[in-house]
C-alpha cells in the first residue's frame, strides 16, 4: 500500500466535485429556500412560516396520510415474497423459470407498467370484462376512478411491481444457508411449519429487516411515478402523496418555498430510515449472500 499522501484525494476529486454539485450545495440551498418567503420578486426571511402553512393545507395532510397508508404494503410484500421464495427454494419444478418471470415486473419501467395497469383497471377495461365473463359483473368497479378504491388499486400495483425484488433477495440468501441445517431439522422430525419458523425465518431475519426498511423508504419517498402516471393524485386528492405535492407546488404552482419545506421534512424522515438501512446493510451482509 505504498502511495503518496495526496494520491487518494486525486482519485476522489471527480467524486467530490459531482457529489458536491448534485447533493452538497443543493442541500444547503434547500434548507435556505424552505426558510424564505418570495413576494414581489424578492426573498425575505420567513422563519418556519412555510412549515406551518403546510400543516394547514388539507392537500398536504391528505398526502402524508396516504403515504402512511401505503406502509400497509410493506408487511404484505414481506409475506408474499417470503412464501414465494420458500416455495422456489424447495425446488419445485421449473423454479428457475418462475424466478425469471417473477423478477420481471421489478425491471419494467413504472411509467410503462402504470399506463398498462391504468388501461386494465379502466371502467371499460380488461379486468372488468373478465369479471363479467366469469359472472362476477357486480365486482366490475371503477378501480382508479373512485375515491374509495383508487388508493388500494395503486397499492396493488406497487406490491405487484416491488415484490419480485424481495423474492430474489430472500432466495439468494436461502441458497447460501448450509444444507445441513435443514437436513438436521428434518432428521429431528420437524414438520414443514416448524422448519420454516425455526430455521428459514431466523436465517432470513437480517435480509427480511433489510427488505422491510428499503420498502418503507420506497412507500414514503419513491412512489411518485406510480401516482403520476396512474392517477395524478386523483380522483380529488384520493391518491395524493408527498412527492407529487412537492412536484405540483414546485413546478406547477410556483411555490418553491413550500416545496422546499416538504422536501426538508421528507429528507429528515428518510434520513432516519437511511441510517437504519446502513446499519442493516452491514449486518445483512447482502453481498455475501451471493
Amino acid at each position, binding site marked *: 500500500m505504498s502511495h503518496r499522501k495526496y494520491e487518494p484525494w486525486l482519485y476522489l476529486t471527480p467524486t467530490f466535485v459531482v457529489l458536491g454539485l448534485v*447533493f452538497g450545495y443543493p442541500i444547503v440551498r434547500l434548507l435556505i429556500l424552505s426558510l424564505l418567503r418570495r413576494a414581489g420578486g424578492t426573498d425575505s426571511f420567513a422563519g418556519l412560516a412555510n412549515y406551518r402553512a403546510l400543516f394547514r393545507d388539507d392537500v398536504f395532510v391528505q398526502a402524508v396520510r396516504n403515504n402512511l397508508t401505503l406502509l400497509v404494503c410493506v408487511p404484505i410484500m414481506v409475506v408474499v415474497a417470503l412464501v414465494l421464495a420458500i416455495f422456489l427454494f424447495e425446488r419445485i419444478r421449473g423454479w428457475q423459470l418462475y424466478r425469471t418471470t417473477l423478477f420481471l415486473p421489478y425491471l419494467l419501467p413504472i411509467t410503462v407498467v402504470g399506463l398498462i395497469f391504468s388501461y386494465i383497471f379502466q371502467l371499460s377495461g380488461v379486468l372488468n370484462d373478465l369479471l363479467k365473463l366469469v359472472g362476477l359483473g357486480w365486482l366490475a368497479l371503477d378501480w382508479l376512478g373512485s375515491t374509495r378504491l383508487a388508493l388500494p388499486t395503486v397499492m396493488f400495483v406497487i406490491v*405487484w411491481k416491488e415484490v419480485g425484488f424481495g423474492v430474489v433477495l430472500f432466495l439468494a440468501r436461502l441458497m447460501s444457508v448450509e444444507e445441513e441445517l435443514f437436513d438436521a431439522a428434518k432428521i429431528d422430525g420437524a414438520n414443514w411449519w416448524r422448519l420454516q419458523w425455526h430455521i428459514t425465518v431466523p436465517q432470513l431475519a437480517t435480509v427480511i429487516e433489510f427488505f422491510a426498511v428499503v420498502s418503507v423508504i420506497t412507500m414514503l419517498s419513491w412512489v411518485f411515478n406510480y401516482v403520476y402516471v396512474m392517477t395524478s393524485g386523483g380522483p380529488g386528492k384520493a391518491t395524493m402523496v408527498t412527492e407529487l405535492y412537492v412536484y405540483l407546488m414546485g413546478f406547477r404552482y410556483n411555490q418553491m418555498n413550500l416545496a422546499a419545506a416538504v422536501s426538508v421534512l*421528507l429528507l429528515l424522515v428518510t434520513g432516519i430510515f437511511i441510517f437504519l438501512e446502513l446499519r442493516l446493510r452491514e449486518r445483512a451482509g447482502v453481498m455475501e449472500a451471493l
Partner: protein
Amino acid sequence: MDGPKRLWHWAGAGIRQLTVAAATLLSLFPVYFMVVSAFKTKGEYLASKWDLPHSFFLHNFVTAFAGEKFFIRFANSTILTVGAVAVSLVIACLAAYAFARMDFPGKRTLFNLILSLMVVPPVVMVVPLFVSMVRWGLVNTYPGTILIYVGLLLPFSIYLMTNFFQTIPKEIVEAARMDGCSNQGVFWKIMMPLSAPALITLVVVNALWVWNELLIALVFMQKDELKTLMVGIAALRSRNYVDIPATMAGLLIATIPIVVLYLFGQKYFIRGLVSGAVK
C-alpha cells in the same frame, strides 16, 4: 411412505405449484395484455380485450413511430443513459480504487457518508437542484441532466466497485508492483480487466435505472425536443382520446431494450440488484 403421508406430500406439492404458477401468471398478465393489444385494431381491441389478436395489425407500430416524436424521445433516452452510465462508471472506479486500496484519514466516515446518499430520494433534491441548475444555465441541456444522473448513480456505483476491488487478491497487485507497476498502472492493467463482471453488472443496473427514470427527466428536460421516452409515455395518459393499441405498440418498443438486456444479462441484474437496493 404410508397412505395419508403420501397424500399430504402430493397436496403440499400441488399447493406450491398452484401458488407459484398463479403468482407468475399475475406477473405476466400486464405484459401479455400489452403484447396482444399492440397487434389488434381498435375495433378488435374494443370487442375483446383479453384474447389473442386475430388480425396482427402491424400498422400500430407505424402509428407509434410516427406519433409523439417517438424517434427523438428514444434518442434522448439513449443519449442520457449512455452518457450517465459511462461517466459515472469512470468516476466511481477511480473513487472505489482509492477506498479499496489506499489508506487515508477519514476513509471509513467518508465511505459511509457516500453510502448514505444511496437512498436519498431524488424528489428531495429536485427543487434545490432546479434552482441551482437555472442559475448555472443547465436546465434543458444534456450535460446538466447527465450531471444529475451521474450524481445519483455514483453512491451505489462506488459501493459496488469498492466491494469488488476488495475481493481482488493483494498478491496480484504486489506482484505487479514488483515488476515496477505504478498505482495508475495497477489500476488500468490489473484492477479494471479483472473487474469485468462487476463492471457489466454496474452498466446493466445503472442503464436500467436511467432508462426508466421519470421525475428528473420531467423537470430538467422540459423542452419538447428534449423529452425522454418515459416522459412522452407518461404524457399519454392525460389525453382524452387515446388509440390504446397504438399506445401499447409504443410501450412494447420502449420495453424491448429492457427485456433484451434482462434476458441477456439476468445473472448480472440479479447480482447487482441484490447487492444494493437500487431504485
